[in-house]
């Protein structure tokens, strides 16, 4: 099997009571198109940073959407903002804006 650099995650349980969904709401306000994602993975497939690392936007997007922010801030730094993901997204998600705003929101949340 070819190695895509990412694999299907192990089964796990997310307790929504323990998640802080405030950051998700904030991102919705900043980047309304964030909601449209269908997790097709086109962004990850085309990603320039993904050619070097296991940086995976789809994964990060899903983690963020579920309120699991641990380690996201560090991982998001790998993005070069080249914009290929935004151009290939079939759902018209403004991914560059999403990444910048995720970084901004997480930075402010961690500062507090």
């Amino acid at each position: 099997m070819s190695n895509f650099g990412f694999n299907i995650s192990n089964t796990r349980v997310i307790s929504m009571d323990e998640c802080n969904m405030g950051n998700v709401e904030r991102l919705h306000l900043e980047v309304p198109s964030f909601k449209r994602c269908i997790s097709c993975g086109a962004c990850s497939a085309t990603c320039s940073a993904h050619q070097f690392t296991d940086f995976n936007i789809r994964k990060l997007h899903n983690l963020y959407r579920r309120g699991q922010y641990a380690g996201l801030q560090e991982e998001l730094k790998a993005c070069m903002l080249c914009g290929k993901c935004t151009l290939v997204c079939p759902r018209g998600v403004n991914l560059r804006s999403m990444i910048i705003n995720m970084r901004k929101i997480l930075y402010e949340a961690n500062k507090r």
Partner: protein
Amino acid sequence: MSNYFSPFVLPFLFGVIALIVICLIKYIRWYKQFDRLQKTILLKNIFSLRFLSAIWETVMEALFHRKIFKRNFLLGYMHASIALGWFLLIVVGAIESELALETDKPFWIGIFYRYFIHDPQAFPNAHFFAHLMDFILLIVLSGVILAYVKSVFSRFFGMKKTSKHVVFDRFAKFSLWLIFPLRLISESFTAALYNNGGFLTQGLGDLINYSVADILEIPAWTLYSFALGTFFVAMPFSRYMHIFTEVILIFLRKWGLSENENVSGFTMYELSACSRCGICIDNCPLYKDLKLQGVQSIYFLRDLRYKRPKEEIADNCLMCMRCMAECPVGLDLMTIRRQLRNKKELDTNDNYKYIDNLQSFNSIGRVIYFAGCMSHLTPGIIDAMLTIFDKVDQKYWFMDKDKTICCGRPLMQQGFTIQASELRRKNTQLIKQSGANMLITSCPICYQSFKKEYNLPIQVMHHTEYIHMLIKSGKLKVRKDDLKVVYHDPCELGRACGIYQQPRQILKTISTLLKTKNEKENSLCCGYNLGNTVIEPEQQGEIRNAALGSLIAKNPDVIATACPMCKKAFKRATNCNVKDIAELVKENMIL
């Protein structure tokens, strides 16, 4: 002095003193905000002969308003008549008082000349001067009348949307509008009393009853003085600060100063040199196609100047440079916008450790081909370029074939300057180590980055320049087919790098190039420019459709462009063929 003083001079006097003091305070403060490099450059060049060309530019732009004339004659006449006319009123007034009086002349005598000097033959040829001053006043008044008309019917002046102004601006504007009619009235009253006017003021004065003039003369001159005083006090806080600042800015630019990464004293000069004429509004794609207001350069600079910059406004710009092409003052609008996008805490070091292991390739005697991230989404362009390299037996190193490092410009545009420099450092290292003698890129974004931000020791070419060179030197032979083609100028290649001719000459060689409505500096952005992260893809689509509409107006067979981004943008919205110039050349090569 006592002979030539009247209490009504006081408002004017107060205004002038306030104006000079406030301007000096501001200018000295901004000078102190220059960084060390800017100060060094300034001190090095200040005594060179560059001031000659600065004076020339000041006369052409600050007085004659050449750029505005080119855009619209009426608009140019309006600005030039007020600026040049007022300047001449001051200069000729000073000469007049110099001739009339030998000693005992306060500096305001030129402004209130007719009130203080009643003798129509105060010096030889005084009549001529009276007529000349009236003629100049007439020209200024025609400009003021045009300004009234413009505030209602801006369309006649080539402007659809005019700017919204702050309170100080309105204050200054209304007093400016009153100054010259009041001068006319005051001089006419005086002419009615003493017969010392020129053709205009005397003509009006003769219609006025002597006793009426006797009563109203002083009030009229007082109002005139008040209008002047109000304008002078409001000026440093309003958009009219541009009157002096633009001149200083022209000199600073000629002395070699420019914007740098952060807001500096130079930025402060640029902010105040913006006259808020509103010319940038009409053609901004965000206004023209999306009707977004308040984000255009004029409002952005205004908010910044009054210390209330809004982050979302700084971000909401395509960076298509259309406003810069229009700006009569030639402000560096894109750099100022980038300075405000500074991401501060987010912009961290060592984000891209993963590129450290990338190896260079021994390319002595070869050229480097850097397709650019976007070109990887348009494989046709890469394929065409590689075919062309093979055809002309040019050995190359395809630098970003498998592992693509971004050039760094998208990061820089969003204000991540440290992260961008990290990518630039690695790319520079790879390029230098390879020993290649030339770098060819297919992406105008990368092209601009390599050309302006990298400082590479080797030649950098966009593929249109390269192909043009090949065809011109006869290395690449092409045939002309009967396709009708229109060319779309990408923002980053055209307005940003000034490459207009090479693509057109290639297209003329291989096809029939049709003219379009918006060409060269006036080309429309495809909407997909990476500069903007705020607008949504649907809004980008609307901007794209507007650009597309102007391109397909003449039913071309092919829309040619030179940017993978523009190609991608158009391709998904039209049935018309969209091709990169490289692809068209490949199809028309003679085997």
